[in-house]
């Protein structure tokens, strides 16, 4: 065994250049495949988490007809006992009541259709936690001008600030990330920048009659904290609903699509506005993690608990079938691309095998003639092929590890046109890599399969080898 490995290893380096080229092609294929897949899956996860965390939750308990007809008519009575029972289900982290509907909002001459989500301001902290999404800093024209006139920051720092004109941030970390100052500059100038960009904001009190408005919507309506807007719509069983609501705060939603059309208020305020006493439209259930398996199990467990059979649990992907299909489609086209890449690489490996076999026909003949069993020869050639694949595979995986780790924690933040384009499509312009998972190990399986496939040829040749013909060369 040891001897076979030694011979195989040395054989591998007989044609150093060819081995290096073949290994390099496997290396680049694996490296590219891992990185690309990691970015793809990472972006999906990011997007899904955005969606789940700030909008749908892992699961929602709803009236069975609400999915197709999201009307207040399909709301249900909110009871503490149902909620407590769901909280008792394994892997459930939080259960949060929502009353969701649509309405028109207007301010001055501007009107827009928006989504209203009514929440319990305290308990919502366990779920989407809108308080952390309140805009704290905003890079406005005035802020840039003030900063410039103050003369307290150097030109290059000012340029970076200008580069993010119009952006709003709900955390200092995100602001620092996007400004991308080096450590020294950050320490010295961030306090100065904060002075000019900090904006006042507020959250909802427990029985508040005010609202939170999403950032893009607020700028469309040209309203800020302290202003009021008018809401007009249809309430429970078709009654008309109207009201004036003071704006308590501006929140920045990660998903631009949602950021364009969201108003948050308290459940009592909404029940009053919509004339839907004691009703909610959904219970948002969040789980410890978002794997499909976990979500499916939780769904069936919750459905068993629900006594009223017109109320049912739905998963986030049942709630957003289009997003889910988009992700699936994109993922499949990514896999197809890798398939083509590996297909090309396979022929590289196969070419090497063809040359190797024809060059060594005579040598194989001599070995079998002097008394080496064909199986032993097959084992040596197989080992050679495995090594050939393994070199590229191992180095390809190793090379991708630091990149995946780095960009998982420090994701690429897209800027400029590309970022705008992605945001228009409803995607957050952040691209983290996915942590090591099956996609990583799958590369080994794929390379392994290619090697096995390419090895069939020399093994058949050896099996059919006629000593005297091989010896003739």
């Amino acid at each position: 065994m040891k001897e076979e490995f030694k011979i195989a290893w040395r054989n591998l380096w007989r044609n150093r250049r060819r081995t290096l080229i073949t290994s390099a092609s496997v290396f680049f294929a694996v490296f590219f495949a891992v990185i690309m897949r990691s970015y793809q899956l990472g972006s999906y996860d990011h997007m899904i988490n955005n969606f789940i965390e700030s909008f749908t939750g892992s699961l929602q308990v709803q009236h069975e007809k609400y999915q197709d007809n999201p009307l207040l008519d399909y709301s249900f009575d909110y009871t503490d006992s149902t909620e407590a029972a769901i909280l008792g289900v394994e892997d459930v982290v939080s259960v949060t009541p929502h009353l969701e509907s649509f309405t028109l909002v207007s301010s001055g001459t501007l009107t827009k259709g928006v989504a209203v989500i009514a929440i319990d301001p305290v308990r919502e902290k366990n779920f989407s936690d809108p308080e952390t999404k309140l805009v704290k800093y905003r890079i406005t024209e005035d802020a840039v001008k003030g900063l410039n006139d103050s003369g307290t920051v150097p030109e290059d720092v000012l340029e970076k600030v200008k580069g993010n004109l119009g952006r709003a941030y709900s955390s200092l970390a995100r602001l620092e990330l996007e400004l991308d100052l080096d450590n020294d500059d950050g320490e010295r100038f961030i306090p100065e920048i904060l002075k000019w960009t900090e904006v006042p904001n507020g959250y909802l009190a427990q029985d508040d009659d005010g609202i939170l408005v999403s950032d893009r919507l607020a700028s469309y309506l040209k309203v800020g904290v302290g202003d009021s807007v008018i809401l007009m719509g249809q309430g429970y069983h078709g009654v008309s609903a109207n009201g004036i609501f003071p704006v308590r705060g501006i929140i920045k939603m990660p998903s631009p699509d949602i950021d364009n059309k969201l108003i948050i208020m308290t459940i009592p305020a909404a029940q009053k506005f919509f004339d839907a006493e004691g009703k909610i439209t959904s219970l948002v259930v969040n789980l410890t993690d978002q794997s499909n398996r976990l979500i499916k199990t939780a769904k069936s467990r919750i459905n068993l608990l629900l006594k009223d059979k017109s109320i049912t649990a739905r998963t986030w992907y049942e709630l957003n079938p289009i997003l889910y299909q988009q992700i699936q489609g994109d993922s499949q086209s990514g896999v197809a691309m890798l398939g083509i890449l590996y297909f090309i690489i396979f022929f590289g490996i196969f070419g090497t095998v063809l040359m190797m076999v024809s060059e060594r026909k005579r040598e194989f003949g001599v070995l079998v003639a002097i008394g080496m069993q064909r199986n032993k020869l097959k084992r040596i050639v197989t080992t050679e092929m495995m090594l050939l694949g393994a070199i590229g595979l191992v180095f390809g995986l190793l090379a991708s590890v630091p990149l995946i780790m780095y960009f998982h924690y420090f994701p690429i933040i897209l800027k400029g046109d590309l970022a705008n384009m992605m945001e228009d499509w409803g995607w957050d312009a952040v691209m983290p890599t996915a942590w090591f998972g099956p996609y990583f190990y799958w590369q080994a399986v794929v390379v392994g399969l290619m090697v096995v496939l390419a090895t069939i040829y020399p093994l058949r040749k050896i099996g059919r080898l006629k000593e005297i013909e091989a010896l003739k060369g």
Partner: protein
Amino acid sequence: MKVLELTHVNKIYNSTEVKVHAVNEVTLDFMEAEFTCIVGPSGSGKTTLLNLIGGLDMPTSGEIVIGGTNLSKLKSSQLIDFRLNNIGFVFQSYNLIPVLTSLENVEFILLLQKKTKAERQQRAIELLTQVGLGDKLHKRPGELSGGEQQRVAVARALASRPRFILADEPTANLDTKSTENLLEIMEKLNHEESMTFIFSTHDARVVNKAHRVITIEDGGVKSDLVQQPH
């Protein structure tokens, strides 16, 4: 003692349009410690005959018996093991595994015979010293001359302690000096180890060294003479 017996051996090639009777009714005996040369014009059937004797090819009819074993009774994998333990081979060229050193090449055949590491090393070093390559144990074939490579091949053929050594034109690619040198070594091993050698050649000087000369023509034995080497 007889090491090898051929009775009414025929080999007919049907593959081409014309039938070729490459070996024709050959009946021969070889005794232990013989030093036999097979000569004949090109195409007379020397290689075909040696391949049959070596169990690399099967006769169309007739029997080849080595140490009591009829070769045609063996299955393919049994034949390989039989060759490993009974026949030493020296081919015209490319005998050696290019990625192994002289020592490893000789050890290799002992490894196939599942000999212990100590036994392998001792025998390989001893034989390589006998063929005059004691100072080139760790050279790979690419770093050796053609003559040196053939000497390693002879050492390897001998290492497995076969009943006889077959060599089809072992000197065909060698210059005069290397040819003489190789023949001397083969003769010495024949003498010291009582090893049976059966080799073919075109070279008159090689023929002169043989103790027995078998002349083949059109696949048949034309003459079979014992001579005084000169």
